[in-house]
């Protein structure tokens, strides 16, 4: 790989490679994946909320889920402990002591559903119902002042939340540092 300056050229080469990949002879290895198999494993939620499941969860229910499933590591109010701090920190990112939390840092709300469902709670991932994942997501967003106490989140309302730090991400400009 050369300097990133030539990354456009690389992309063009890659596109050409992609085209040739489609034309190549097949080995005949593997078997078809069925739609049911794919549906069971495809748990990715897009940043736009795509692939979010049916159902919903309230901040009120989330308060219960959080205290039972999350508070032991993340603190009763999401202030952090063995697990990451989840709340606060808005307005600190450009300071000497930035605090990166769901509220201050995460760019997309649907990622919260994706991550809680696939990886939390740490001792029993993929054990929460979709409703409880919506509820826990709603409660964490409420703790960050991003949804009101009476909010109920579903695929549409979760995807509609605009996270404060959404537009602060930039692409890789390296090499950015010169040895003099």
């Amino acid at each position: 790989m050369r300097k990133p300056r030539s990354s456009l050229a690389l992309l063009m080469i890659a596109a050409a490679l992609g085209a040739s990949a489609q034309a190549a002879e097949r080995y005949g290895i593997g078997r078809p994946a069925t739609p049911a198999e794919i549906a069971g494993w495809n748990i990715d939620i897009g940043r736009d909320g795509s692939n979010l499941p049916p159902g919903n969860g309230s901040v009120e229910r989330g308060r219960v889920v959080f205290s039972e499933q999350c508070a032991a590591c993340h603190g009763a109010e999401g202030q952090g402990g063995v697990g990451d701090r989840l709340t606060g920190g808005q307005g600190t990112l450009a300071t000497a002591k930035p605090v990166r939390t769901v509220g201050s840092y995460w760019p997309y709300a649907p990622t919260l559903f994706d991550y809680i469902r696939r990886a939390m709670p740490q001792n029993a991932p993929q054990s929460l119902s979709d409703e409880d994942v919506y509820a826990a997501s709603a409660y964490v967003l409420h703790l960050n002042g991003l949804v009101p106490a009476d909010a109920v989140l579903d695929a549409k309302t979760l995807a509609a939340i605009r996270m404060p730090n959404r537009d602060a991400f930039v692409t890789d400009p390296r090499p950015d540092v010169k040895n003099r």
Partner: protein
Amino acid sequence: MSEPAADKRARKASRRHFLQASAAIVGGSSIGGLGSTNVLAEQAGSDAANLPPNVPEWMKAPGDPMGSQPYGAPSVYEKGVVKNISKSLPQYISASGRTPLQELDGIITPNGLFYERHHGGVPSIDPAQHRLMLHGLVDRPLVFTMDDIRRFPSESRIHFIECSGNPVYTKPYGKTASDLVGLLSCAEWTGVRLKHVLEEAGLQKDAKWIVAEGADAAALTRSIPIEKCLEDAMLVYSQNGERLRPQQGYPLRLLLPGFEGNMNVKWLRRLKVTAEPAYSREETSKYTDLMPDGTSREFTFYMEAKSIITRPSGGQLLSGPGFHEITGIAWSGRGRIKRVEISVDGGKNWQNAQLQEPVLTRALTRFRMPWRWDGEEVVIQSRAIDETDYVQPTLAELIAIRGANHFYHNNAIWPWRISALGEVSNAQA
């Protein structure tokens, strides 16, 4: 297995090390006296029986029989060469352990010492029950068994993997080479080019990214640009000739030469071809780099050129003035190492080190330079230059642009200070 004889040797060895250490401390503080003389005498007495002109004890009886170790282990005298795992981590399920770089020679990391980073512990996966699913923007979604994966044309290549946070930019800085950059290892990997597997499914024209997911308790997910998948990415099942260790993704992992470690998804179970990245938690809230102005860099894939002197390095002791070889490792995610320069005068003058062949792309390169130490305090350091002519920067230069809260992708020069007593320590600590 069980070798009383070996255990006895180990006990004797550790006693000797203790005595030597005691002698060194006493000698260093110039106390001397009767006590230290006795210690030195005892040390000399216990060692002398195995030294010339005597016949060593291990020649006077047969050694351990064939089959004592069905899977070989290092000498009992190397018990201290283990992964460098902090005893004060907040938790050990999402955590990392380091390779003891300063104890190793060459460029290949032994499998038992390969660095570890997991986000949901190390799963124990039955390969007969493991499947790789390939779906998304493909003509034919497919499921592969491990036997299927091994039927593809195979390939072996030597590449490093380095964690992106190796080390962070803020103090306290580590004492040893392992503390500083031990989230780095290098192995010979065997598997199949991802390109071949993708061809089986047939990429559709909007295919721009592939989302890779692990079968661990974190179901770790990262998005990889399609050009990398078609360039040199591999699905790997063996490491240094044997099947992957569980800590390295058994039975199947992704290998993305030169990309930050966490993207080389372990325990790989799913590849989804997409038009845009997943924007998963691990590529938004983690593994993004905060800049002083509050913006954050995302999708910073390649690990830039870097090097470190592993001998002499922090925590070691030079035996005295005279000849010492300076050696270390250099690497770049962007290609081959072109040159490594060494300074033995605090960074004023630099001279070229010898590079050990073969110099491989996106692999560790071993460098060496003969050196005579005059016994004066000195600061030594190395800097790598890769085939793009990029020069490894100083920590100050990095922080001046990126700030101290950047966290990942720190490829700074790390100088070592050697005191007049020969003690080596981190010159930036």
